[in-house]
């Protein structure tokens, strides 16, 4: 078996550990773009395969997570571009039963997020869930800081419209 070589100046992480640590986030990020459970699962596998193949191109000028998210982003948007890719209905098993819709907005937020264009949805994910700064989001999405700021604002406006039934 070929050894996957991983190295970091600060820390050494094996591929298995890397998978365990970041695969849920990669899945969620992929899901925010692809909006499909199975597709997102495939994306996770593909991201780590690509990472292992192109490990030498990882310059370590960003974190492992950022690098993996960039790979995931490229994969997901290429997948969307693919003509064969069709959005299927979102499977409800993605959400665990303990999901508690005690807050009114949450009830429809799932649908609202799924209606949101993928470029907005990914920004919402990166900001709200990952808690990345504008700078980090710009690094992952290859957008300017100003663009990140504006697009996040538009994403929120769009989401608000959907939630209010204006869309």
């Amino acid at each position, binding site marked *: 078996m070929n050894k996957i070589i991983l*190295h970091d100046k600060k820390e050494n992480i094996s*591929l298995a550990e890397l998978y365990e640590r970041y695969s849920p986030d990669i899945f969620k990020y992929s899901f925010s773009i692809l909006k499909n459970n199975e597709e997102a699962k495939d994306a996770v596998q593909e991201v780590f395969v690509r990472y292992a193949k192109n490990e030498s191109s990882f310059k370590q000028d960003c974190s492992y997570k950022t690098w993996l998210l960039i790979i995931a982003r490229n994969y997901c948007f290429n997948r969307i571009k693919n003509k064969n890719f069709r959005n299927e209905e979102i499977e409800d098993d993605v959400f665990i039963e303990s999901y508690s819709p005690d807050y009114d*907005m949450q009830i429809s937020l799932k649908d609202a997020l799924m209606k949101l264009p993928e470029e907005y949805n990914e920004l919402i994910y990166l900001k*709200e869930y990952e808690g990345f700064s*504008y700078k980090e989001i710009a690094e992952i999405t290859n957008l300017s800081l100003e663009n990140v700021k504006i697009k996040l604002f538009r994403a*929120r*406006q769009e989401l608000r419209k959907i939630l209010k039934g204006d869309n």
Partner: protein
Amino acid sequence: MKHYQLEISQFVDNELPADELKKLFVHLSDCEECRGILSDFMGMKKGSKAFYDDIDVDLKPAIKLPAEIVPRKVKNTYKTLFYFSAAASIILGLLFLIKLSNVDNLETQYSSLQLKYNELRIEHSSSKKDDIINNSSSKNISSNDEKVSSEKKHHDFKKSDYVSTKNLSSKSLKENYSKFSGKSQQITVVQVTKNDFLTPQIIGN
């Protein structure tokens, strides 16, 4: 009234600069619409986080992943490239020097040959003058054939660019020219062209 929707979005993201923060608070105290937007944005933030937090899937890797860590070999791409280019430049420099020395040698040979050629021409012309003087005085040479032959050979000699002196001493050349001036039938002209002056070819009889 100007609304602060963009600033509200930045505020929700904790990315609003401090100087704008004060303006926003002043505005929010007077604007109900913006307060509503702020409330919605905050709600969406909370809801979105909860949405992604609640996603739970079983993600098993498709293949068994290696757990060991192997230190990565430091790639010496730039180092190798540097040494390679240095070696290449040294080789090229040497080749250039060799070429340059060859050119110098050729130039030296060329100039020495030119000098000898001029010497021989002077000798040839002086011997021809003597011939004419001798012939006119003795009035013995009247054969047109000989004159034509002599001129022809002279013309051939002129046509040749250089005369090789590598294998012939000036003495032997002198002898040849004295023969040429006396007996046109036995002339031996050493004719060497510009391109092959290092390998002289003897033409004529």
